[in-house]
């Protein structure tokens, strides 16, 4: 137990103790601690286990570069998996457990797996489990894999805010360089936003005794005050996790434990990256032992949390910045020995935790080994944005090279590790000047893994990738950097290679005797640190994931006991009443067929097409001929795609010589509007055609049934409804409450029907009136299901249900225009290709079964192959028998033939018949 607190260090609030447990034992930390710092302060050294061999793991780094200490954390009923101890701020009452270790990180029963490591090296999966079968082994392997368990609970309040942000200058990283850049930009009048991923900005500045003659804490406060005074914003605990197209930057602002982070979609005129740099591990035997950690990580633990990681420390580093850090640690009371790795190979003693180090014949006992193999600038966002990297031999690191648009890197992220030079860069960047990249005092000795060396030397601590694994990969020719990564899982741990990648690349370079930059780098992919999936959901949940369209009369329908359901994106009455659905629907059909049904058809698409070229335009857009349609007339027709497939069906009314009303399927209104607009503007004179989608402006109420005329006549619409004056497929304008009413005598049920469209705001009154009059005739409201049954009785199709994406109009019995129409129309040429004219086309037919109702979705089978399928099937209350529609190969020429109907493992017989089984002569339609 060597980790401990040091007085007078750290930003923690020692007056606010917090209690928590780890692996079942109680501990105490302070406000401002992370779980990692609190555990180290309590002398806990083993914080987790590695993924594959279950080797004990201590903390490597002090912030997001640590992938060793991954905990499941529970507090106040919220249970979150895979929380990095180093970035999870301590709260009172936290219950933490190491993931993938049982019963505890300190004693893990799977630790024995390490004994078999010889056979579990890189790529062993690919060579094994081939016999007898992978499926025999996979379940056990799945159970072994994975980090934390996820509780089944749904966190009801775990909801991300999502907001948009904008600024002139976004500074990413609140270390000294970022603060100075933000301040200078803000004071120059720019709208500045500074984001820093810790709760207290300042980066590594607290490792220093002072800056500009102030304590680091005072200096940081002075900078943030100045930024805010100049109108800038400082967002703490906010991570810039990705850069996306057109400069969009994703920010995740983290709150207290258990709260989902907030997503800020930030647009910045310019981005200044000041994310700093990370310590590289040094590769030597047993370098994964708990107690071997990042030098700067240890310094940061002392500076921010007042935690000294040990009492007897070895500092193993190959560069000039280590001296200052070692000195500071020594001044805080640790016993320090500086070891130059250049003096000879080193190795840690074996054991559950590090106890000492050997270098040549020199052996010494330490309780922590702090290593730094040089610094690696954090260039993730730079790469997301498309910036290039360039290798710097002097720094032995990839630095930002050719810049992406509107982005600059400063400070340690730019390889500028000297504070004064970094601050000069910051000031220059703030004003948009290119940063001066001058001389650096940073000196680093070449120190890369030594292939062929004895012992197990870790490259990726979480994923258990060792130097030998890299050697095996090289031997087997998995030498491309992406092959190396994928074959060994190097850099695929939850830190995505922040610590491992450089050592891995260097190992491969050394093995192949190539310069490191030739080995290359893997792609830097967002997110920079893992973010909860919830971040992307925010308000897009439940009904708001894709909001339904609502009827103007929804309240009235609910009042009438409607069972509402979704149809084509609209919430509509399926049927009315609380009885069994089938019985209710049948009763509605009988009412409508007996007297009349009142039906809300408001979602029907209503697109007005006007102008001098409207007629010619519609003649082109429709399969059917439009120019012969006279004002006051209505025609049923199809719109086709250029591929000749039926895109939509509906009626077209001609209101005047240059004014048409296109009715389309309710679910297609948006698509038809886009379709019409596209053709209006492309190939036509758009000044001579005007298109207006009035779907939601008008409510459409339909009265259908033998008593329909009597009912609508009793409503004062100013229209003569006599059969002679208002024939089938005619349109008449009327008046309702002083506003225009549009009445169409069209029918989807096969019975006499009138569709009355009035402005949506006047629909309630009309509905009330129709109900009142209708009920005196025995009429009742009917839902969509009853209407579907009636239209099927009549053999009318529903697009997308009774047609598929191959259906052409001649498959539905509308062959005329295909040969007779002389003007060009959409899809015309496609109706004559080999497929369109060939045999075996699926054609609309009726299906008569004697063995009961057919299943919708059943197939027509012949010799075990499909010839088509049942598209609609009902028990017809009108006929007292089952009816069905289907698409069947060459069906229209096979009427009368008995076919086999297959549904799952059942087989039935049915006879192909004409689709229309209700009023085939049309007497009721034309009544």
């Amino acid at each position: 137990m060597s980790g401990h607190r040091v007085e007078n260090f750290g930003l923690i609030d020692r007056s606010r103790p917090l209690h928590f447990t780890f692996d079942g034992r109680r501990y105490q930390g302070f406000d401002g601690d992370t779980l990692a710092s609190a555990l180290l302060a309590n002398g806990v050294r083993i914080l987790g286990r590695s993924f594959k061999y279950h080797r004990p793991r201590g903390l490597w780094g002090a912030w997001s570069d640590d992938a060793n200490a991954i905990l499941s954390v529970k507090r106040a009923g919220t249970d979150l998996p895979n929380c990095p101890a180093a970035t999870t701020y301590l709260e009172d009452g936290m219950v933490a457990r190491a993931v993938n270790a049982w019963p505890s990180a300190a004693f893990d029963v799977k630790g024995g797996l390490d004994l078999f490591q010889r056979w579990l090296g890189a790529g062993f999966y690919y060579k094994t489990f081939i016999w007898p079968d992978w499926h025999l082994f996979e379940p056990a392997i799945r159970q072994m894999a994975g980090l934390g368990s996820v509780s089944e609970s749904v966190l009801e309040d775990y909801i991300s805010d999502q907001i948009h942000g904008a600024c002139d200058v976004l500074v990413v990283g609140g270390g000294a360089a970022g603060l100075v850049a933000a301040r200078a930009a803000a004071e120059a009048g720019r709208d500045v936003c500074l984001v820093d991923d810790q709760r207290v900005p300042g980066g590594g500045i607290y490792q220093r005794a002072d800056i500009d003659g102030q304590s680091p804490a005072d200096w940081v406060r002075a900078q943030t005050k100045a930024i805010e005074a100049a109108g800038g914003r400082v967002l703490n605990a906010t991570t810039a996790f990705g850069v996306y197209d057109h400069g969009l930057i994703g920010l995740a602002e983290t709150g207290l434990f258990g709260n989902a982070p907030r997503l800020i979609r930030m647009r910045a005129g310019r981005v200044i990256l000041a994310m700093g740099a990370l310590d590289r591990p040094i590769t030597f035997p047993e370098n994964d032992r708990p107690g071997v950690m990042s030098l700067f990580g240890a310094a940061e633990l002392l500076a921010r949390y007042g935690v000294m990681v040990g009492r007897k420390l070895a500092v193993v580093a190959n560069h000039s910045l280590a001296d200052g850090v070692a000195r500071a640690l020594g001044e805080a009371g640790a016993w320090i020995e500086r070891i130059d790795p250049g003096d000879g190979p080193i190795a840690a003693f074996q054991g559950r935790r590090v106890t000492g180090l050997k270098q040549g014949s020199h052996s010494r006992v330490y309780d922590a080994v702090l290593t730094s193999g040089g610094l690696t600038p954090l260039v993730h966002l730079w790469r997301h944005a498309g910036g290039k990297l360039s290798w710097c031999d002097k720094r032995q690191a990839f630095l930002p090279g050719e810049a992406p648009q509107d982005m600059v890197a400063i400070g340690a992220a730019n390889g500028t590790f000297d504070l004064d030079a970094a601050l000069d860069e910051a000031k220059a960047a703030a004003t948009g000047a290119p940063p001066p990249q001058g001389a650096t005092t940073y000196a680093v000795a070449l120190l890369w893994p030594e292939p062929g060396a004895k012992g197990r030397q870790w490259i990726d601590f979480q994923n258990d990738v060792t130097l030998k694994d890299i050697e095996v990969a090289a031997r087997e020719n998995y030498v491309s950097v992406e092959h190396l990564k994928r074959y060994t899982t190097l850099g695929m741990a939850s830190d995505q290679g922040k610590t491992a990648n450089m050592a891995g690349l260097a190992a491969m370079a050394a093995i192949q005797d190539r310069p490191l930059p030739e080995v290359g780098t893997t792609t830097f992919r967002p997110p920079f640190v893992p973010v909860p999936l919830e971040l992307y959901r925010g308000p897009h949940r439940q009904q708001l994931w894709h909001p339904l369209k609502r009827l103007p009369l929804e309240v009235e329908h609910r009042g009438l006991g409607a069972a509402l359901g979704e149809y084509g994106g609209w919430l509509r009455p399926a049927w009315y009443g609380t009885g069994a659905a089938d019985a209710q629907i049948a009763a509605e059909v009988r009412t409508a067929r007996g007297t009349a049904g009142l039906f809300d058809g408001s979602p029907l698409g209503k697109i007005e097409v006007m102008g001098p070229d409207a007629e010619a335009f519609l003649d082109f857009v429709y399969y059917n001929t439009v120019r012969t349609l006279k004002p006051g007339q209505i025609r049923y027709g199809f719109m086709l795609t250029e591929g000749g497939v039926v895109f939509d069906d509906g009626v077209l009314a001609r209101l005047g010589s240059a004014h048409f009303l296109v009715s389309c399927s309710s679910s297609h209104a948006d698509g038809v509007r886009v379709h019409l607009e596209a053709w209006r503007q492309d190939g036509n004179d758009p000044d001579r055609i005007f298109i207006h989608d009035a779907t939601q402006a008008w409510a459409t109420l339909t009265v259908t049934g033998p008593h329909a005329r009597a009912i609508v006549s009793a409503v004062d619409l100013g229209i003569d409804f006599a059969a002679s004056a208002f024939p089938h497929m005619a349109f008449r304008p009327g008046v309702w409450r002083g506003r225009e009413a549009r009445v169409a005598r069209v029918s989807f049920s096969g019975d006499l029907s009138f569709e009355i469209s009035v402005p949506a705001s006047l629909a309630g009154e009309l509905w009330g009136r129709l109900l009142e009059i209708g009920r005196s005739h025995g009429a009742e409201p009917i839902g969509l299901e009853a209407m579907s049954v009636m239209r099927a009785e009549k053999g009318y199709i529903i697009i997308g249900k009774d047609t598929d994406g191959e259906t052409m109009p001649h498959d539905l019995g509308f062959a005329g225009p295909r040969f007779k129409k002389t003007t060009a129309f959409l899809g015309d040429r496609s109706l004559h290709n080999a497929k369109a004219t060939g045999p075996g086309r699926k054609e609309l037919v009726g299906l008569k079964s004697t063995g009961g109702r057919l299943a919708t979705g059943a197939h027509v089978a012949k010799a075990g192959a499909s010839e088509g399928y049942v598209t609609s099937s009902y028990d017809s209350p009108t006929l007292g028998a089952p009816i069905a529609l289907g698409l069947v190969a060459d069906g229209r020429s096979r009427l009368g033939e008995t076919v086999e109907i297959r549904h799952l493992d059942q087989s039935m017989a049915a006879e192909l018949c004409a689709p229309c089984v209700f009023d085939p002569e049309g007497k009721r339609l034309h009544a």
Partner: protein
Amino acid sequence: MSRYSAGRIFREGLRAGRGWGQAWRTPNPKPAYDVVIIGGGGHGLATAYYLTKNHGIRNVAVIEKGWLGGGNTGRNTTAIRSNYFYPESAALYDKSVALYEGLSRDLNYNVMFSQRGMIVCAHSEPEMEMAARQCNAMQLNGVDAELLDADQVRKLEPALNFSPTMRYPIHGGVLQRRAGTGRHDAVAWGFARAADAGGVDIIQNCEVLDIRIEAGRATAVETSQGAIKAGVIGAAVAGHSSVLAGMAGYELPITSYVLQAFVSEPIKPVLNRVVLCPPFGTYASQSDKGGLVIGGGLDRIPSYGQRGNMPMQETVLSAFCEMFPSLAKVKLLRHWGGIVDVTPDSSPIIGPSGVDGLYLNCGWGTGGFKAIPVGGYLLAHLLAEGRHHALSRPFGLDRFTSGHLVDEAASSGIAH
């Protein structure tokens, strides 16, 4: 090639794997080959392998611009299935599943084909009717299929959202038990290793700069490593098919889009199968390592940029959270994008290119990974025999002139 066997693995373990040989060589290109395959992804490598195995043709080169398996083979969601509606598609993809079933032993390389099953959920009564249509079609196509009700789905995947307040409540679904996932890299590596063992030269970091056409016939490939003559050329360059077509002078009905994929941090098993919820346009499975692997629809903007865009990320991941609300707290580890060839009917193009001596395997859209074995099998047949295999016949370029599109979306009533 060092053969992988239990004894060998044991011995190599004792000597730190020092005896393992190269999985594939790094040869210099020869001046000429009987067959040159452009594209060292799964399809190209599988083509080379089946040329050696089924047709005895070994004087073969695979030319790869970057690293083998680095295109869509290495950046997909690893689903393998044959739950198709039209007999032509079902025959094609079911052959692929059948080849996958024997692939690990065939290649002596564990591709980890895990037949854990795939459920396509249905979220309304009309969708249940469509599910029945699909299920019956699959059964008639000879593909295993089961129609499930909501309770059956719940038993198989309890983590799914069965709340009535969900936007698209689950009514049931169609299960294909033989569907599953594979280890994508291993498929590329396994084919590469076996092809190399059969004598194929796999030439990485070799970019094709032009196609030499002589008297209307493609005769050689000009590359960054010099000209390579070819008896016949196969092209399997998903994502860049149009670029190659531009070089060789043929036309394609292809638009390139980004398809994104997402993986979470590893967690203990919560998701047993591949689950697709069509109205959400989103599907997911859990890898053997424990990561949730999530996929969705295409980005909406034609693109050659191998990276994703935020709107589709928000669509897919919000949908995933709606499908599996208890997993909303799991963290996203990584997301990426691949460039896919999208054809008008979303079916592949396999067949002559229109330029003599050059055959195509492209246009797989979002579904190329599952078809790697059959894509290679059929392109190898074309290259060796100069004519279609019965399975590839419906997928030639000529279908666009005759109108014989194979559009799976059409089966669910969508008109294109």
